[in-house]
């Protein structure tokens, strides 16, 4: 019996050694394989860096922009025209159904951006036509026109100068798709396949996807930057963080997303595993819907801020691995104001404020708790129960509500909630990506301002901060905005979480991105 086991083990070992396969235990199924239409981490991780490239890329593990499909670019004096010079050696994937006849060129760039930009583009409406980030980053109002100069030169003309344009182009959504593939699909009358059976220029080729189970990739043998050191990458979709940890220990995964705080010690204490960490550029918060009474009253919002024992959440939910959040902007991003006046834990004061607002006997309300573990909040339900207990002490009776993740997000975007746990990891490292994206009046319409808080003074400050180019001036504007925000208390800021990754010892060359994206290209396995 024993020798049998040994033989089997050997067989299994040989199987694994013949090829370098990385198994990544991810949190959720992607909603699409086209990052242009994605809006959540699991979707971007499964497609953006794996299958595609952008004109500009963020450096590995950093926020600096480096050349991608564009070898270099020039910016006109007035800051309105960007000319990109494309590399000539980038080829698209060869798949079972598609064989490219030419390298990536200007036509592909035009096709990809016009698909999102132009409402009458033949592929605009295919698979829904929601280009969440493209619109969210205001690329549609930023870009006036895109022109092909020659096969390897593309010109972007903007309506007005925009400092974040290059950084936006490096974001997950700004990928380049194959026009040749699209033409073939049009001919076959199966345009919807463009986002389901993806073809990109990236380091890996999609082999097979089984929903809620696994995604398999092979290395792209003709990748322009050189074939990846890994032969295969498998995403094993494992929503339960504890199960991810168990699988890591059992060797079923080599790398796991978002380990649960209570399992961190188990990873760092295991000689076969290693733990990596990095302060995250994120913020977890509780947003109060100011369009719904009683949260329209400032005193009520402040009372809630005083009533929540946030230090306890840091201990219990984050197991002391996060720092207390004072501002929306984390300290890892510039323009974080360290002197903002914070609310301390003070139930007495909270009761006083409630009385002043006319709620001496409290009120009934709901808190929506995160249904999944996110980098900024590993356990929404647990935090919800703590909040429930804290608020009960000041007379506020809370029901905890939750939905599955996509439903949760879209209901929240419609403003159906009262109080909601949510958070944010920056996509481009700019303060506006917190202060504007999450709190501006425009974002109430867009749906990403979940407090639905619109303050004209605040809006004026952040608009100015976005358009000036002097860093010091921008910084001082954001300092002012943060103070105003904190006094108005549309959110209770909770935590800036440290990002952790657990992996087996043989995984080498992996870097945690501060922007929350995963890149497996640099990884090697010993």
């Amino acid at each position, binding site marked *: 019996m024993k020798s049998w086991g040994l033989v089997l083990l050997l067989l299994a070992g040989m199987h694994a050694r013949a090829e370098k396969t990385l198994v990544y235990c991810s949190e959720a199924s992607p909603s699409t394989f086209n990052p242009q239409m994605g809006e959540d981490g699991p979707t971007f991780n499964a497609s953006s860096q794996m299958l595609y490239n952008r004109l500009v890329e963020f450096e590995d593990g950093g926020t600096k922009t480096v050349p991608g499909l564009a070898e270099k670019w020039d910016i006109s004096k007035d800051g309105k025209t960007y000319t990109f010079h494309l590399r000539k050696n980038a080829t698209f994937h060869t798949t079972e159904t598609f064989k490219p006849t030419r390298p990536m060129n200007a036509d592909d760039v035009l096709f990809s951006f016009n698909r999102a930009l132009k409402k009458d583009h033949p592929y605009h409406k295919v698979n829904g036509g929601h280009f969440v980030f493209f619109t969210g980053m205001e690329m549609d109002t930023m870009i006036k026109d895109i022109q092909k100069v020659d096969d390897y030169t593309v010109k972007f003309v903007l309506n007005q100068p925009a400092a974040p344009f290059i950084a936006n182009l490096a974001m997950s959504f700004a990928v380049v798709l194959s026009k040749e593939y699209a033409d073939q699909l049009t001919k076959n009358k199966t345009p919807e396949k463009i986002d389901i059976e993806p073809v990109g220029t990236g380091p890996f080729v999609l082999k097979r996807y089984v929903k809620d189970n696994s995604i398999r990739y092979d290395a792209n043998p003709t990748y322009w930057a050189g074939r990846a050191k890994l032969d295969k990458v498998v995403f094993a979709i494992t929503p339960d963080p504890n199960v991810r940890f168990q699988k890591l220990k059992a060797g079923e995964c080599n790398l796991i997303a978002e380990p649960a705080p209570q*399992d961190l010690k188990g990873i760092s204490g295991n000689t076969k595993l290693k733990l990596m960490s990095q302060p995250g550029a994120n913020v977890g918060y509780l947003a109060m819907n100011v369009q719904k009474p009683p949260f329209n009253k400032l005193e009520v919002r402040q009372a809630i801020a005083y009533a929540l024992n946030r230090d306890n959440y840091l201990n219990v939910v984050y197991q002391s691995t996060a720092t207390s959040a004072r501002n929306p902007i984390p300290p890892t991003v510039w323009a974080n104001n360290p002197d903002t006046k914070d609310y301390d834990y003070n139930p007495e004061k909270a009761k006083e404020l409630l009385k002043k607002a006319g709620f001496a006997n409290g009120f009934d309300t709901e808190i929506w708790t995160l249904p999944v573990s996110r980098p900024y909040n590993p356990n929404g339900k647990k935090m919800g129960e703590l909040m429930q207990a804290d608020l009960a002490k000041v007379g506020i009776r809370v029901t905890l509500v939750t939905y599955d993740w996509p439903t949760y997000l879209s209901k929240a975007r419609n403003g159906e909630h009262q109080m909601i746990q949510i958070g944010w990891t920056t996509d481009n490292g700019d303060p506006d990506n917190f202060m504007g994206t999450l709190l501006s009046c425009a974002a109430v319409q867009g749906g990403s301002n979940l407090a639905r808080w619109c303050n004209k003074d605040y809006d004026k400050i952040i608009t100015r901060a976005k358009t000036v180019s002097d860093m010091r001036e921008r910084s001082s504007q954001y300092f002012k905005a943060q103070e105003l925000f904190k006094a108005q208390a549309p959110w209770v800021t909770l935590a800036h979480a440290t990002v952790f990754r657990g992996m087996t010892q043989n995984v080498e060359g992996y870097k945690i991105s501060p922007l929350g994206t995963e890149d497996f290209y640099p990884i090697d396995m010993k």
Partner: protein
Amino acid sequence: MKSWRKLFDNKASVVCLVFLSFWVLLALLAPVLPLHSPIEVFDGQQMKAPVWAGGEARFPLGTDDLGRDMLSRLANGSRISLGFGFLSVVVSVLIGGTLGVTAGFFGGFWDRFVLRMVDVLMALPSLLLAIVVVAILGPSLWNALWAVTLVSLPGFIRISRAAVLAEREKDYVQASRAFGAGRLRQMVLVILPNCTAPMIVQASLGFSDGILNMAALGFLGLGAQAPTPEWGAMLSDSKAYIESAPWLVTWPGLCILSVVLAFNLLGDGLRDAFDPKI
């Protein structure tokens, strides 16, 4: 009365009765016992081990992942499991009994209709049916109760109907009919008391099914909602800590198992006492 004596002669049944009385007392007295509140969060006291494993005397059975006293949560959980188990049995006896007795007594179309309903209810596995009901009504403790009750109805209907059919043809019923007893009078005064034995057996088993199903719904997140200390929900919250705090998983499960086991044993004892045929 001979049956009851027989029951008390059965050692296992007596042990079960004593054990269950203890739980019932605990459930009734939980609010007045010197316990912490089951939902009070003790800051900085998360996942404390039970007292014999190095914990503090304040929390004899340890604390959960949020820092709530396990002893108090388990004791208060018994209120929910036993209380809702009891409610489910009472409602099932009332509704199921009425349907079964009337079906058996009147026969005909009504009988066939009731039997069809039973067939339909039994065509789905109990937990799935309960899940469907919760899906329609929305997850909550009370909706879980309705679901669990609906699921347990077929058993009660069939047992009471069978008992009525068996009694109906017996001499004393025929006799009372000969003396001109009205139908309703017959049903209530003559047949019903003689159907109680099988109903009591079924009720005891219904208790254990009800408690198991409520716990299962709680475990799936479709029953009791936070912060209610329901045993099944407590289990599902603690599954992430099987490694770091095994007692969180151990206690609620032992509570469920012991109570369900006691009701099943008692059910066996009752059956032996009332119905020596089996």
